[in-house]
């Protein structure tokens, strides 16, 4: 029961945080240099009649609080207006691109968890050995290379030379999409594997030193039980927090990977919108990014209660 109350309270707080973000995001139109009607007109030629028409259409002559209230009401119905650059509805543009970003993020997170966590556990249980040092060195190399260099190199080797993977785009159908997203997801994952592996390693080192680990081994429990139920589950808390942030990062900030592999995702959308001062798109994506980060943190926090039974009886986490 206490979990449900906690969840409810947390959702209310998230709602208030999103409201605060919405005020900032709404203000972007007024904080940007240039008059709002000029920005909303974009690159089209301006004359007094057109500017007056824009002012009437977007209610720019109303008091600012009622403009905000109108914008918020539309936003709650997922209506963020139309892109100044393309004339497409903002929600349409985002819903076209969000699946690509989500697929890429999920694929990359799966790769990170499958690669980084086992490596970190292995390294953490053998600190200072050749295995530990070897793992740390290899993953640090992947972490140090910039995304576009890794991306272009892998495109050249695996795409152009070996023809294993396609060069650009997202593909249609599940298998085709997995093929298209493999190189980008791997590039995205490389950047983060070192981080998560090192975190897992540090956590595993701490847990491995505990008495209950020694006792489990002495008792002769199977390696599967030792590794999964004892080591992994006890090391998981800080790692899960990081993975939550990593998911939020992948969903909002994968723009370089998107550009290199020509993936029509949210990152490219917001980059183009900022470059062309397409404020309605920037507003919508800003709100979306805040929502993603808050949700990712909520899910990470919720997962603690599953991982650590001691936290279930507390009224706050």
């Amino acid at each position: 029961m206490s979990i449900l109350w906690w969840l409810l309270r947390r959702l209310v707080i998230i709602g208030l945080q999103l409201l605060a973000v919405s005020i900032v995001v709404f203000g972007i139109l007024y904080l940007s240099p240039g008059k709002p009607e000029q920005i909303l007109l974009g690159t089209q030629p301006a004359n007094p009649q057109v500017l007056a028409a824009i002012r009437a259409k977007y209610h720019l002559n109303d008091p600012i609080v009622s403009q905000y209230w109108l914008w918020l009401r539309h936003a709650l119905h997922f209506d963020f207006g139309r892109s100044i650059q393309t004339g497409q509805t903002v929600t349409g543009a985002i819903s076209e691109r969000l699946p690509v970003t989500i697929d890429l993020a999920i694929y990359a997170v799966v790769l990170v968890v499958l690669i980084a966590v086992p490596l970190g556990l292995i390294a953490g249980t053998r600190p200072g050995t050749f295995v530990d040092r070897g793992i740390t060195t290899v993953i640090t190399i992947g972490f140090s290379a910039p995304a576009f260099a890794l991306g272009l190199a892998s495109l050249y080797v695996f795409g152009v030379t070996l023809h294993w993977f396609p060069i650009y785009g997202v593909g249609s159908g599940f298998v085709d999409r997995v093929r298209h997203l493999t190189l980008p997801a791997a590039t995205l994952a490389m950047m983060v594997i070192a981080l998560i592996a090192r975190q897992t390693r540090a956590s595993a080192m701490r847990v491995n030193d505990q008495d209950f680990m020694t006792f489990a081994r002495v008792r002769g429990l199977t390696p599967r039980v030792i590794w999964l139920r004892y080591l992994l589950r006890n090391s998981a808390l800080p790692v899960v927090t990081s993975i939550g942030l990593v998911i939020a990062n992948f969903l909002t900030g994968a723009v370089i990977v998107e550009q290199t592999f020509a993936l029509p995702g949210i990152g490219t959308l917001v980059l183009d919108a900022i470059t062309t001062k397409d404020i309605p798109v920037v507003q919508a994506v800003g709100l979306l990014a805040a929502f993603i980060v808050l949700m990712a943190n909520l899910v990470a926090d919720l997962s603690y209660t599953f991982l650590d039974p001691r936290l279930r009886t507390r009224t706050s986490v």
Partner: protein
Amino acid sequence: MTLKAPDLTYIYYLIYPVVYEKAQALAAGADFGGPSGLVMGTGPYQIKSFSPASGATMTRFDGYWGAKPAAKELDIKVIADPETLRLAVQSGSVDGTFDVPAGSAKAWESLPNARLQFGSSGTVKMLFLDPTQAPFNDVHARLAIAYAFDRPGIVKALEDGHGDSANTISSPFGWANSGTPAEVKQYFASLPVLNFDMAKAKEELSKSATPNGFTLTVLVPSSLADLSGMMETLKQNVKSIGITINVKQVPLANWLDALRAKNKAPMGIVSISADSPDPLSLVQSLVTGGTDGFSAYAPAAMLSLIAEYKIASPARQLAIAKQVVTQLSTDMPFVPIVYGNSKYALNKKYVYTSDITGWTAFGTEWAHYVEAAS
């Protein structure tokens, strides 16, 4: 359609409006031209699907009244990164592109399965110098800048060697329908040549109101490497005569806003093309006498010549064009730098059976000229 005043040059603008089906446009409403509304035009291809994110697919319309192009389907993709684009052409997953970035010709020409074609374009890369404020309200300061560009060097380094030094902002590309080729060639040869001559630049500057130089800030678009490069070379060259230029890289939208702002910067750089094959097409869009254009340069004599041009006979038009261009060389409110090029990379499986020019991508039905290589 009736014009308010006679204008013989208007005929060229008729290629720009698109003729589309009224019923379809009305039915599509606000979504017209977008992914859900699309467009119904009058050409040999019809749009099957379109989105700013994923590109466009067009299929050949077999009910077209004219000649059938060879390609049954055109698949236009969006690839923002130029290196990825090159790898895509190399791997064969993309057949061709107009988007070869300046300065990368060497890498593209080394592709074994694609051919890179160059052609002339009407693009002029030039500086705007504001004649209403110091330091460029003095013609000698403007001329000093004009002699401070190594134009052949810029063509070699920033235009892949395909381009020309520009001595005037009216590119010879626009004179194809005016006079005879010999006459046009003779006229252009008569214009003062803007050599790279720092001694002459210093001499001009010493005759100006700011003989010891001055300091300027110039905005360049960070996404257009050729313009940034040209501004950097100017910055280096004019150091020796006491002119300090602070080059500031800004996003494209900010650079455009600054060019159009009411308070103009003393110097701006731009890459711009004429709208039509007319000697004064570019000039008349720059010298307008209005306040929302790129330049405040608008001598009354030139404005009345331009007005006369619109209703003059072809012979008189040629004479006026020569007069206006000569006056621009004397006054130098715009410093021409180089004429750019057009590029087209195409897989060797196909041939492009016409010349590539500045009009190819937007002024012609280029798909007609793509045929399978025999």
